[in-house]
């Protein structure tokens, strides 16, 4: 009975010693913190992060500057387009008014007569002669 208790205490003590030894080894007390910080990969990553942050700032500044220039040019272009559209509409209105006036003046003629308008009065006989120059247009059969 006494031997049995002793063996149990011995076994429990051995297990405890084994656990503590495992914990001590797992903690790697011989590996210093300074050595970990000195890993060149960490340093490279940190440097790269710093460089990327700096480049991002530069890109943001370039984009902001270009955006300002674009907005200024866009405003100028929109002003030019508005001016051109306004001028075109004025020309179109003038052309429509002149066309309406021309059509109205011709339509008011009381009856059909030889075409004479705008200072070009048709003579009694047509003026025609044969020439050797190239034609403006060639008549087709109707």
């Amino acid at each position, binding site marked *: 009975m006494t031997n049995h208790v002793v063996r149990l205490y011995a076994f429990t003590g051995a297990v405890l010693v084994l656990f503590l030894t495992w914990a001590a080894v797992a903690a790697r007390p011989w590996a210093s913190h300074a050595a970990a910080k000195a890993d060149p990969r960490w340093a490279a990553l940190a440097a790269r992060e710093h460089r990327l942050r700096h480049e991002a700032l530069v890109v943001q500044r370039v984009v902001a500057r270009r955006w300002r220039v674009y907005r200024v040019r866009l405003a100028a272009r929109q002003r030019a387009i508005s001016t051109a559209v306004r001028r075109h509409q004025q*020309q179109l209105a*003038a*052309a*429509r*008014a*002149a*066309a*309406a006036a*021309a*059509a109205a*003046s*011709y*339509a008011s003629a009381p*009856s*059909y007569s*030889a*075409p*004479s*308008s*705008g200072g*070009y*009065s*048709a*003579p*009694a*006989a*047509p*003026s*025609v*002669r*044969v*020439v*050797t*120059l*190239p*034609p*403006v*247009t*060639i*008549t*087709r*059969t*109707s």
Partner: protein
Amino acid sequence: MILTRTFRAMGTDVELFLAADPGPASDAALYAAEREFERVEALLSRFRPDSELSALNRDGHVAAGEDLLTVVELALEARERTNGRFDPTVHDALVGAGYDRTFEEVAREGASSGGGGRCGGEVTVDRARGSIRLEPGIHVDLGGIGKGYTVDRAAAILSSAGPALVDAGGDIAALGRPDALGWRVGIETAEDTLTLALEDAAVATSGRDRRHWRRDGEERHHLIDPSTGRPADADLVRVTVVERTAVEADVLAKSLFLAGEAGATAEATALGLPCVLVTADGRTVIAGGLS
């Protein structure tokens, strides 16, 4: 500077030429001339069911506007002057020959109608009441004169902005002159092209070399001889006439075509009417003092 505008109207390509500087005035004139084609075509086309002419042919009478009254009066006057060789009542004969749709459709699909048509019916114009009445069974086609009328009107409108030329297929009107020589217009002869310098003149060409089709194995064309009600069997292929207006040139070109080579030559010489005839055997005859 010669400004141009091209568009399609009355079944043909229309070209406007204006000797003027670009600007609102020239733009307005070109625009107004094009609109004039659209306006008159909407009134005088027999292929548009809503035209005044279609209403006249459908009902036998119509309260006509100024344009239809004028063109019908001109056509009836031309019938008198040409002893019936030009006749606006060839409508049924044209339909009988197969020209019952726009020419593009006739050429594409082939003619399908049958029978001839009676010509020379009575057409009464009452200008006081603004109405036209047709003899029962008679229908009117103004294709032989309507385009010339429109060309004259468009040329007059265009000439408000400068010397102008309107070319609508076989009908040309030239008002003023763009330079010392005048408007140069090419006339197709049997061999080549003859160039005429025109000022305040019009040219019309009528012939059977373009608007023709086959029906029942027989060649048909749109120039109807009112005395037979059938396509004219003339010894000419094409007649070009120079006159003061496109309406007059249009009428006389058709009349001379029906007269045949001998008759047309004699008539043109007697009238001093400049004309170019192309015969069926491939000769070119120039008459009427043209030199």
